[in-house]
């Protein structure tokens, strides 16, 4: 326990350093600003703002990215409550009850309950991350190349299964991502491959181009095309402090939502969306008066908000301890770390303690900042939502272009992002999910590298995998999931 406390203290000293605090604050604010724009979810927000972090030191960059992530989540909830426009899908359950409260002139208490739920969920989950990440990282040191291959195969299969599209479509997206990941220098021979003779592709497809194109540019294209409805009016926000009755009702729901979110966020393929819907459903199921849900119940709002924030935090555990991203956001974090020359995984805890514990402490500080900053700034967010969108989204587009160019200074990266933007829009219209593609793109090189090592370790006899029980369990789990999915159909 003293060691745990010492680690957390180290993290707090790193995260509370004035520069890192400023990065966290700027990240949370930027994330909120972009996150409240309807249609732009957390993934797109992180993708768009990712290039802004490259000039920063690694710990500052990661802290700012994490701040952007929570900010985007929070921004989505604000618009859901005030205007019934969920900034992102995780905020849909919050809109159900939060907006009903707002329509009755109780937007202030609704925003407060959402903020409180998010804060509690985030705080508990942060401590869970701090408590579990280090032991998990130690356990991960037992993993050999074959175990990593098996884990990645399991992760990719779960990505396919959890994608909101038919399984075949998810599998095709994963294969596209894997194929794209092979473009560039071969890890073993050092020779360029899959470049089709295009100069500039020898260094591979830029992660930022792919992420910004598939998520950021594709979102902007969709928004420009779909002409979002004008921002509706909302009632007065009212006194921000909820009544005692509200708090009595919300408190147990926050506890249950936090527990659901913390567990769901740990699972590969899962995320804040699953967590918020699961917590809302649980709360409704155990309620004596389920008819109140959807009509302004503080319980529903509190459960959903605490669950989505808790899940957002605990999804850092597999990323930090195993180096395996459980969702597209974490894939972006891995991409950002790789651009700073840091390989996430079990060794990061021992080799980069400042970065690791600093990030964990910044999660908590980020939650405090969101609580302190966002409630007084609600009026500003409302005004931002009324900004002319036909000017707002082109502005975001050009800022993204500058950001992409700033990473490697290559105009080809900007052109590639445009191509990926069109491709991302095409994929969306054809029901092909972009998230699994990005995840596979990040995992592809790791998968190939570990498979090569596994073949060498097994002296070419891949059947020797039977000697590795953990590997067998992971592969059996993957096969079981596939069989279960086939039967379910």
């Amino acid at each position: 326990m003293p060691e745990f406390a010492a680690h957390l203290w180290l993290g707090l000293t790193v995260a509370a350093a004035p520069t890192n605090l400023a990065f966290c604050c700027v990240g949370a604010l930027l994330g909120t600003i972009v996150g409240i724009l309807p249609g732009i979810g957390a993934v797109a927000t992180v993708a768009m703002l990712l290039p802004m972090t490259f000039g920063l030191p690694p710990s500052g960059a990661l802290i700012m990215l994490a701040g952007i992530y929570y900010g985007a989540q929070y921004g989505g909830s604000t618009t859901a409550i005030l205007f019934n426009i969920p900034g992102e899908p995780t905020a849909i359950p919050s809109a159900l009850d939060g907006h009903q409260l707002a329509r009755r002139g109780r937007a202030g208490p609704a925003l407060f309950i959402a903020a409180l739920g998010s804060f509690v969920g985030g705080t508990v989950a942060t401590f869970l991350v701090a408590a579990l990440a280090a032991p998990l990282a130690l356990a991960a040191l037992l993993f050999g190349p074959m175990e990593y291959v098996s884990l990645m195969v399991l992760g990719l299969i779960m990505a396919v299964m959890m994608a909101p599209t038919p399984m075949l479509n998810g599998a095709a997206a994963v294969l596209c991502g894997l194929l794209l990941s092979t473009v560039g220098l071969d890890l073993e021979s050092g020779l360029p491959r899959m470049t089709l003779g295009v100069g500039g592709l020898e260094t591979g497809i830029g992660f930022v181009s792919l992420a910004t194109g598939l998520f950021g540019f594709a979102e902007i294209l969709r928004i420009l095309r779909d002409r979002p409805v004008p921002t509706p009016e909302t009632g007065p926000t009212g006194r921000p402090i909820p009544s005692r009755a509200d708090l009595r009702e919300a408190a147990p729901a926050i506890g249950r939502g936090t527990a659901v979110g913390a567990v769901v966020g740990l699972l590969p393929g899962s995320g804040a969306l699953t967590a918020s819907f699961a917590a809302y459903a649980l709360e409704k199921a155990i309620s004596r008066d389920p008819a109140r849900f959807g009509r302004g119940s503080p319980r529903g709002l509190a459960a959903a908000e605490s669950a989505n924030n808790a899940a957002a935090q605990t999804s850092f555990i597999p990323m930090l301890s195993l180096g395996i991203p459980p969702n597209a956001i974490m894939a972006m974090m891995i991409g950002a770390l790789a651009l700073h020359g840091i390989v996430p995984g079990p060794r990061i805890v021992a080799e980069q303690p400042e970065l690791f514990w600093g990030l964990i402490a910044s999660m908590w500080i980020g939650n405090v900042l969101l609580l302190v900053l966002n409630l007084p700034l609600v009026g500003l967010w409302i005004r931002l939502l009324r900004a002319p969108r036909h000017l707002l989204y082109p502005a975001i587009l050009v800022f993204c272009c500058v950001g992409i160019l700033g990473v490697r200074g290559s105009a080809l990266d900007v052109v590639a992002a445009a191509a990926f933007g069109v491709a991302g829009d095409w994929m969306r219209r054809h029901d092909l999910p972009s998230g699994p593609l990005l995840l596979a793109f990040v995992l592809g090189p790791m998968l190939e590298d570990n498979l090569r090592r596994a073949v060498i370790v097994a002296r070419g006899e891949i059947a020797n995998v039977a000697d590795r029980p953990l590997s067998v369990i992971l592969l059996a789990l993957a096969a079981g999931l596939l069989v279960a999915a086939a039967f379910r159909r």
Partner: protein
Amino acid sequence: MSAKAGESEAAENAPARKAAGSASGLSRGEVARGLALVGLAAVGLCAAAPLPGVEGLSLGAGTMPRIYATLLGLAGLAMMARKRRCAPERVSRPPSRLTGLFVLAVLAFAVLVKGADVAVAGHILHIPRLGLAGAVFTAFCLAVVADRQSSWRSGILAGAAIAGASVLLFTGLLRLPLPAWPAVP
């Protein structure tokens, strides 16, 4: 994995899928999707063709790309086959003007910021460097025009403001190594 973006796609695509249920006959969208995947797989296989395969304990540079491309091709074929048996889905077509201007805006930014020499029909076209200010302004105006609701006037005014802000932020504050202003001839 179930990225939130992917999740949001589900919500957005749901109406398209719902609408599809009532349609009948072979869906062009489904065939296009399958064909595109098969085409991508074919490009992948061609690119991987000259690469070495498994040799001894080495997997070789071409093994994984070939495996991925083959599986992708099979997935594309399976999609086409699957959809011949089920109700087709209707896939919306984006306005080509919007997509065209959007791409043009990004391309304009890419070539104008540092300038470029582009080969067109055997001739070298010299595109002058407009720097960050000029490239941002041009790209912004093109993106604004993509939306029919916008007017040139508001686009130009906002474009000038955004260009100024970009120069201040990116070259002044963040010190990105990009030329801020057009090249003086």
